[in-house]
């Protein structure tokens, strides 16, 4: 395939951007879920 | 009291406030002048180049100066919480917005009235035959700048870093206006000046769309 390097780079970039974003969202989700759990326990503990 | 009547009274207040010190106006004019002069240092344009890039430079100077000038519009109200007093008055929120828009329009127009002749002299562009058409383009462009700028001044006054935020919000929104205004001005500065009706219609359309949007959203904009 001619001009393959650019296609490959573009392909990788698309996935990098997409997964980069998805992973940050997923990580923040886990953090928030833990925080909620902690707060709920604190609330019930009173 | 009608909206327009209330707006008129507020306009009077804004004008009186400004003409007491004239600091905003002078700062705006000087800043725009600095931009215009800097350009000649940065590019050292020939006559043909002046004609070509002049309109763009002129409008950029207006946009930058305008973004700085529009900030105090609402941030001034924050210092003594005078906006609350305005809200409590028996007038519609749109009257407040309209009054400020009209005041800003007048300030920008005064700045432009000073700047355009200076610009014409500095860059050897004759504006004798095109005065009224140029006034039309300038008015429509300034209206767009002032309408959106006043709304965003109200938005950014409530945020941090408002001096940086206002241009950041305003300039991307104004790019269609900039394109149409620069093209119109450029066609007026040609050897054979002409004014395309589509461009004027576009500028007018831009103004109408955002004025209507401001009217529809003013309640949410100025609430506590």
């Amino acid at each position, binding site marked *: *395939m*001619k*001009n*393959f390097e*650019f*296609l490959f*780079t*573009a*392909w990788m*970039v*698309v996935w990098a*951007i*997409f997964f980069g*974003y*998805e992973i940050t*969202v*997923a990580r*923040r*989700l886990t953090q*928030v*879920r833990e*925080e*909620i759990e902690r*707060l*709920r326990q*604190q*609330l019930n503990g*009173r | 009291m009608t909206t327009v009547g209330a707006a008129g009274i507020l306009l009077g207040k804004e004008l009186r406030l400004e003409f007491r010190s004239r600091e905003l106006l002078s700062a705006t004019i000087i800043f725009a002048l600095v931009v215009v002069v800097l350009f000649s240092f940065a590019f050292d344009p020939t006559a043909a180049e002046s004609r070509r890039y002049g309109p763009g430079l002129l409008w950029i100077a207006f946009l930058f100066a305008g973004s700085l000038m529009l900030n105090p519009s609402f941030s001034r109200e924050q210092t003594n919480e005078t906006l609350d007093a305005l809200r409590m008055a028996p007038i519609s929120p749109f009257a407040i917005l309209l009054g400020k828009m009209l005041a800003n329009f007048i300030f920008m127009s005064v700045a432009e009235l000073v700047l355009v002749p200076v610009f014409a002299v500095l860059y050897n562009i004759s504006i004798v035959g095109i005065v009224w058409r140029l006034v039309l383009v300038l008015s429509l462009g300034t209206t767009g700048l002032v309408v*959106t700028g006043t*709304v*965003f001044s109200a*938005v*950014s006054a*409530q*945020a*941090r*870093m408002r001096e940086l*935020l206002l241009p*950041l*919000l305003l300039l*991307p*929104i104004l*790019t*269609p206006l900039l*394109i*149409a205004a620069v*093209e119109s001005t450029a066609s007026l500065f040609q050897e054979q000046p002409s004014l395309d009706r*589509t*461009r004027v219609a*576009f500028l007018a*359309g*831009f103004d109408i*769309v*955002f004025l209507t*949007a401001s009217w529809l*959203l003013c309640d*949410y*904009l100025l*609430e506590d």
Partner: protein
Amino acid sequence: MKGRLAYTGITAALVFFAGYAALFLAPDEATMHAVQRIFYFHVGSWNAMFCALFVVFCANVAYLLTRKQKYDALGVSGVEVAVMCCTIGLVTGPLWAKPVWGIYWTWDARLTSTFILWLLYIAYLLLRGLLEDPEKKASLSAIFGIFAFLDVPMVYLSNRLWRTQHPQPVILGGAGSGMAPMIAKVLVLCIVAMFFLMVLVFIDRYRLEQLRNECEELRFEIESRSAQVQSLPPSAAQRMSS
């Protein structure tokens, strides 16, 4: 939970098949060869972006009319996702342009308009970052979002009408040539696949925003309860905590 798993499965299958089609099934283009295949996900990302922005506009209007927090959550999620899609478009564009035109960037109508769009919605996110009060954040960013959305057609129109001095992107042989049926099919498949991907991220981001709000509410609840306890006489407070 199961629904999301099923949806992720469908999306993964779609994306896999679309990728395969774009890379191997679609015919090789005469002049550009392999790099033309970028076109399949380039167009898809912009289509996904516009869909997200339309949802954002509706969410902004809905928030101002109803003041329900979920619409604000929808708005910010949509803008972040749209900016992501726009970034993908703006990066794949130059990667396609370089081997084809010899330059990474040109100020042609479409590219310029999309760049402005990108800046516009990043400004939205910056605005939210600089506003502290949550209600102000929601209502002011909704107002800005509405203005931005109204601006979008004007940006594209003004660039299309008056900035045509630069080379216009030639997609597959020029305006008059049309598209071979196989290419059109693969394109539609890729557009759909990217749309599903966009929705997936959108849902996750929206969930994050909802949970954050729940977190804030819990914190508020805890603070108000501890304030209540503090205002009671010591004996009553002791009875409460035991």
